[in-house]
């Protein structure tokens, strides 16, 4: 008898209060795709290939990203520019195979490949998921500043471009 009364006079009002409280809160649901969540700083989305500040590609096609890739998603073929620089003639990532582990980013000795925050790249055909170098390279001139803090800013370290603190 006492338990029934307790349910009626205590539990139900508590429940009602909770409902009322939530009804006046800001809703959690966002109106995707009109609204978007900010991404976590360590989120790993679609790859992008970086450039030096003169616009030239950072990637030298060394093959370490492909070697470290557990899903074997990266294919590349190197070539040589007129200035004797090595670059990727063909650079392809199969985003369907990719498991977004980030090993390629970690392996890259030239700070060229990064996993960005982009996740909206769904498509209806499988072959559209093979991203070529043109798709992956950041737009030049840049539309937004690069999110990356580079350790090495120039292709070739010389006395002139050596950071001041290292010159002592």
């Amino acid at each position, binding site marked *: 008898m006492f338990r029934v009364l307790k349910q009626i006079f205590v539990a139900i009002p508590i429940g009602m209060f909770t409902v009322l409280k939530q009804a006046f809160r800001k809703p959690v649901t966002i109106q995707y795709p009109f609204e978007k969540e900010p991404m976590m700083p360590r989120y790993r989305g679609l790859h992008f290939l970086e450039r030096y500040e003169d616009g030239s590609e950072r990637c030298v096609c060394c*093959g370490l990203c492909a070697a470290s890739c557990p899903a074997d998603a990266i294919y590349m073929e*190197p*070539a040589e520019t007129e*200035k004797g*620089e090595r670059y990727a003639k063909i650079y392809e990532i199969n985003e369907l195979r990719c498991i977004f582990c980030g090993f390629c980013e970690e392996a890259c000795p030239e700070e060229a490949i990064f996993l960005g925050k982009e996740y909206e790249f769904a498509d209806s055909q499988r072959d559209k998921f093979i991203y070529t170098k043109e798709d992956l390279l950041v737009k030049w001139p840049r539309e937004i500043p690069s999110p990356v803090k580079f350790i090495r800013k120039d292709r070739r*370290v010389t006395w002139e471009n050596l950071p001041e603190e290292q010159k002592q």
Partner: protein
Amino acid sequence: MSDFNITVNGRQVPVIKGQTVLQASLAAGIDIPVFCWHPQLVPVGACRICLVEIEKLPKLQVACATIASEGMIVHTDSPKTIKVRQGVLEFILAHHPLDCPTCDKGGECDLQNLTFKYGLDYSRQHEPKHRVIVDANSTFDDLQIGPEIIRNQNRCIHCYRCTRIVDEIAFEDDLGAYQRSYHTEILPPPGREIRNLYSGNIVEYCPVGALTNDDWRYKVRVWLTKQTSVICPHCPDGCNMKLWNFHNKLFRATSRANENIDNGFICDIGRYGYQYVASPDRIKRPMVRRSGELVETSWEEALSLIRKQTDDIKSKLSGSGFFGFIGDIRTNEEIYAFQRLLRRVIGSNNIDHRFHRRRRLTPGEEVSSRGIESDNAEFKDIENADVIVVLGSDLHSENPITSLRVKRAVKRHNAKVILLNPLPTPLGKRAATLEVIYKQGTAAVLLHGLIDAVVDLERFDPSAIKLSAAEISDFRKANAAYAGVRGSEITGVDVTLVARVAEILAAAQNVFILAGSYVERDPLRDSLHLAVANLQSFCKSARKIFLPPDSNSVGAAFFGAEPTVLPGRQSWGKKAIYEDLWHGPIPDAPGKDTIGILEAIDEDEIECGLVFNADPVRLFPDGEYVRSVMEKLKLLVVIDSFMTDTARLADVILPLSTFAEIEGTRVNWEKRMQYSQRAIPPLHESKPGCEIIELLADRLGVKFNQSKPSDVYQEMARFFPTGAPTTYAAIGRDGFLIRSAETNKPGKLAYLRFVAPAIDTEYRFILLVGNADHHRGTLTERNEILMKFTGEPFVGISEADATDLAVSDGDLVKVESKYGRVVGKAMILRDFPSKRVLLPENFGEMSTNILMGRQDKIDMIKLAKM
């Protein structure tokens, strides 16, 4: 074996007296890191990475240059040595650009591996690195120092392996180290480039990426590639190579060190020669001739056409209306299957592989060449000889690795090298003690004169040789016309020079005679073979080798590609064995050789030919005649990889796979049989030889069920000496020798009858056919990189003749003989004897055979400026 023991890391390690600590440790399986040391080079101790701790010595010692002595206690992995290795690496890396991502050596770099193993993972250096700036416009400091070699001085760690290989192994002078300390630069001498025949080795043995080549530059990463072991198909040395492929595309060839043969050094012809495999000129699909034009078709249609046409010819002429030529560069399996197809299925014995030279003896020249064959000898025997006679061979370009052995003998124990050639050769300037230039066609006279000069010497000891005094005096009497001044009038060689050669030969304990292509091309070839045998009889201990013309000529002769012998060099009496083996009859009489075949076609006795990777129109003397004869054939089936001059005349062409696309065995001049793997699957629609032969046999009515080389090999294996491997797996990396055990006994002395050929006054120049720099045979012009060295045919003439004719370098000259004429650019050769013209045989646009006569003794030509 071992003389005493030393203690390395607490282990007893056996040492042979004279070995270094490093050699003893490596032999015992104890690893010591090295950069500058190489087993074939003299140690210099330049890199200091092999420093080890030796007890009772105050400081660390370099293991590579410290001779082990009894009682030594060595530590190779004590904390002190590890720390020192770290220090050495830190000093090396102080000026290393660390551009591994761009460097082609990445993945197989000694510096990378050792830094990974011992090096620090941080740098204490804040100063910028020393940098050699080559060109301010280029980002990196790559410098092209030869047609093929690229140097990046920043990566160099100054181990001097490259300069030592060029100097000690190749005996060349086109690479050196300039300046001192870390300013040292590896460069060719001013105004020159590095372009010697062995230059590829410096790239292979560079421990870092300082020297790279165009061939491998920025193409593929080493860890992606697969390696297969193959045998080089370009010369009869039979070097072991590795082919590196990725996605069924070949990327490079490197050596696969075999101490029996190449010691780990291969020539550029082998290294870059693989490129013809992927040449765009390959025949891609079967072709048939329809209303005069060759058109592409299917295998099925081509084979049915062959069947239909052969049936007609067979009903008219039986088996003897057919012939077959097979190229010397094919594998033993293909040669064996091809002769079986011809003998058993078609019923013809007209088969030959010697379509590149005159074979038939002229009447009156009764001596038989049979029985005068190479002795049993190996590469190692060259190294042990104290006198090496090179007769009629441009050893440098014909057998580059044999030439390296000769140089090694000179380097190791000052062996004396005597060159007897119709023209000066590159080996002469580099390693020869004496170089004798004789007049083409008189080599036999020269040898007989030489023998006379040897016998004349006081130090000549008749008791040391196996000839009686009567034999010697008879021989001298018969030879009087060729001795001394009379001989020198014929040969054009100074008497004192002959005497000096005789002096060396008489003092020799161990002579090695290498006879090359000019012996095969000599008009008195058979007499010359006998003269070589005579010379051998007069030396204390001598071996002779007749170097075969192509990579598998020995195998072709052994496996029955000749009209008069059956596989295993069996005579015609043993026919029944083969009829049993092949379940059917084979023709009774021996067939015709190349000349016989050509004459028979001319007389309409032969109407159908199978030409398997051979090009008689380009190679056999009197090319115009061969062409006209081949055109007479009712059916010419050419099985080849390229559109050769012969293939252009064909009625049916079947595409054939090249050496990298097939497996099989090859026999080098030592008679060593070696197994070559398949690197990539057949390209385009080509098929391996054994498969094509099986298809043809099946279509013509007999099935052997042996379309795989391994099946053919099992059948062939019964002709090997007992105990030889019967499967590919059992062959192993050293191969095996297929020669018989008995050594060649010096036979009876043969007498020479020399008649000087009449010389036509109109044609005053002697034609010499040789090889251009970085070329050998006819396949090398399909390789882009080799064409960078010598890109076009030339007419080599002497300085004296050039002034006579008022010709300067690069002028067009007309070379004309009774049979044909060619036009080429003149090249003035220094120290070249006058009245001789050198033409390279390597270029299709200037085939030399159209200048030669089939019957002529010496090829005479005339020259005129255009």
